[in-house]
């Protein structure tokens, strides 16, 4: 059995909505993440997929404690990061790093590449100037960039090169878990292939564990061992990619897979078109969050929230019909 690196239990994040009436306290909240449970095993890649706005990025930010949850626990290497003393948390957080979607917005344009990559070392006061410089050069080499680039500014680089810089930066502190939030969506196909190959190589070389958020199901299929499908703040299906792809249980997952774009202009695709609009996390539907759009909903779905049930050891889903 693989060892569990990360365990997320009952995780919630509710953002208060600003009340348009001044000085009145807000009564509504956006339930961005609303009770999420999953494990991540050492050395694997767990893919997170789901509708835009379903809470993927918020969940990533909760795991790495960029924001505090409303409720729930994040257990990393057997220790709960919530309520951990600040100094201890600072230490633990070094082991969890993020690579963001937008290679343009995520690098401070005023800093040179070398300074950007060394920044985590400076913040955590690790090593002196010389050793930091050495580490920067080493990292540039690891991600396949020229050492000389340390003295240049981010705007001088292409999207793919910037994403390499972002990856180098995420590796600075020798993390164990790297959360990639749409790391290749902004890149063209050929550069995307290079960055994916790099991520795979780094995973092998440094025994990294990845949480990989992506909309591109082809990329997810290629990269991930397991996937979690999210819908409106909750995980609705989780398991190995092969199992879920071959045998999706949840109606939302079925619709999702049917929407993968064509592989040729001649392909005719049967699509499950979801009716209605995406419900609002401000006011999520009762019972199963998906019931208003679900093509196969039954009466009980309106009132009762389905529980997560295990289909196979490697495959769990939450739908009344999967029982």
């Amino acid at each position, binding site marked *: 059995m693989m060892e569990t690196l990360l365990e997320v239990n009952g995780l919630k994040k509710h*953002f208060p*909505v600003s009340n348009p009436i001044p000085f009145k306290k807000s009564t509504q909240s*956006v339930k961005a993440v609303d009770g999420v449970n999953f494990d991540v095993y050492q050395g694997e890649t767990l893919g997170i*997929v*789901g*509708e*835009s*706005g379903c809470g993927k*990025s918020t969940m990533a930010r909760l795991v790495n404690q960029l924001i505090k949850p409303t409720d729930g626990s994040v257990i990393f290497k057997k220790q709960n990061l919530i309520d951990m003393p600040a100094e201890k948390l600072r230490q633990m957080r070094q082991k969890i790093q993020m690579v963001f*979607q*937008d290679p343009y*917005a995520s690098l401070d344009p005023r800093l040179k590449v070398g300074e950007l990559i060394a920044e985590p070392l400076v913040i955590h006061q690790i090593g002196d100037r010389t050793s930091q410089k050495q580490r920067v050069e080493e990292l540039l080499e690891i991600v*396949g*960039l020229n050492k000389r680039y340390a003295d240049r500014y981010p705007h001088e680089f*292409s*999207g*793919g090169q910037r994403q390499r810089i972002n990856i180098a930066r995420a590796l600075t502190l020798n993390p164990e878990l790297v959360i990639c939030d*749409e790391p290749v*969506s*902004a*890149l*063209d*196909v*050929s*550069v*995307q*292939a*290079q960055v*994916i*190959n*790099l991520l*795979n*190589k780094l995973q092998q070389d440094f025994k990294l564990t990845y949480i990989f958020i992506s*909309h*591109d*199901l*082809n*990329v997810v*299929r*290629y*990269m991930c061992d397991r996937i979690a499908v999210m819908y409106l703040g909750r995980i609705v299906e989780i398991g190995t990619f092969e199992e879920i792809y071959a045998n999706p249980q949840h109606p939302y997952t079925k619709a*999702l897979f049917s*929407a*993968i*774009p*064509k*592989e*040729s*202009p*001649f*392909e005719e695709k049967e*699509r499950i*078109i*979801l009716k209605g*609009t*995406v*419900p*609002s996390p*401000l*006011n999520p539907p009762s019972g199963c969050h998906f019931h208003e759009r679900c093509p196969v909903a039954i009466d009980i779905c309106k009132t009762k929230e389905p529980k997560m049930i295990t289909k196979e050891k490697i495959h769990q889903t939450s739908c009344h019909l999967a029982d």
Partner: protein
Amino acid sequence: MSDPLLKVDNLHVEFKTGSIITRAVNGVTFELNEQENIGIVGESGSGKSVTATSILQLIPSPPAKVANGAIYFKGKNLLKLSSKEMRKIRGNEISMIFQDPSTSLNPVFTVGNQLIETIRAHKKVSKKQAKQKAISLLDLVGIPAPDKRIDMYPHEFSGGMRQRVMIAIALACDPEVLIADEPTTALDVTVQAQILNLMKELQERLGMSIIMITHDLGVVWETCDKLLVMYAGRVVESASVKDLYQQPLHPYTWGLLDSQISEGQNSAEPLASIPGSPPDLSYEIKGCPFVERCPYAQDICYQETPQLNETIQGHAVACHFQTSEHQLERKEREYSDGDAT
């Protein structure tokens, strides 16, 4: 045959920063007919966005300058219009969805404010009517609870929701030409399918034409009639989508197609990608811009720049060795050097 709705003719755009001149667009020519959907693909930095923003003259000038060429819309050269005339066309007859929603939405105004502004800039309607229209547009692009969301700020939206707001703004005035620069990159596939359907529907209902810039070939197969492949500021191949899929001709296009992930491929096998990087556009390019990375290059490719020529009916390519008389043989997985930087 009637004139095309939009014609970009030998467009050259350059950026001047200090003493450096970057030739971002180097002679791009294409035509867009009524109700047609043209896709543009190409390597990052190949000039897709600059071409698109030049049509609406939304590139910052300086540093940008249209060095040569013309852009005809309904027979008028847009480059010759006054800024007042151009403002009338922009957002109204031709509108654009920008690649980067974070730079094109103003963080200090609510989403509703920005939509209402756009609507009122082009249509004589009351504030209240504009607000109604804004809510229905948000609904159209699938934003949940649009009546509440309309009063929220961009940072309170997820990435994909911001992108949908951009789409709503672009569609606000029922444009005749929609330029969509990576409109669905931040969207999941179900919403993407929904938005692409919406565009198709508007295309049929309003007779809209679309220029669709994307790096997702699936989106191209799904929605486009014609495809332009750009490299280093030039169009290197152009054809109907079906022809291009069945018989791609340019070696760069081959590399692009090979880099796609296909079903059944897993991470044990590195993905194919084109080694090397595109040429620095701040130097004069001699010969074929793809020569440094092309597995088929020969001496002449270093000397002479190949021109875009029609080889087969309606299918044009810019390569010395792809002509009506002579054709290259495409090698299997020529681009397999996955790790190259």
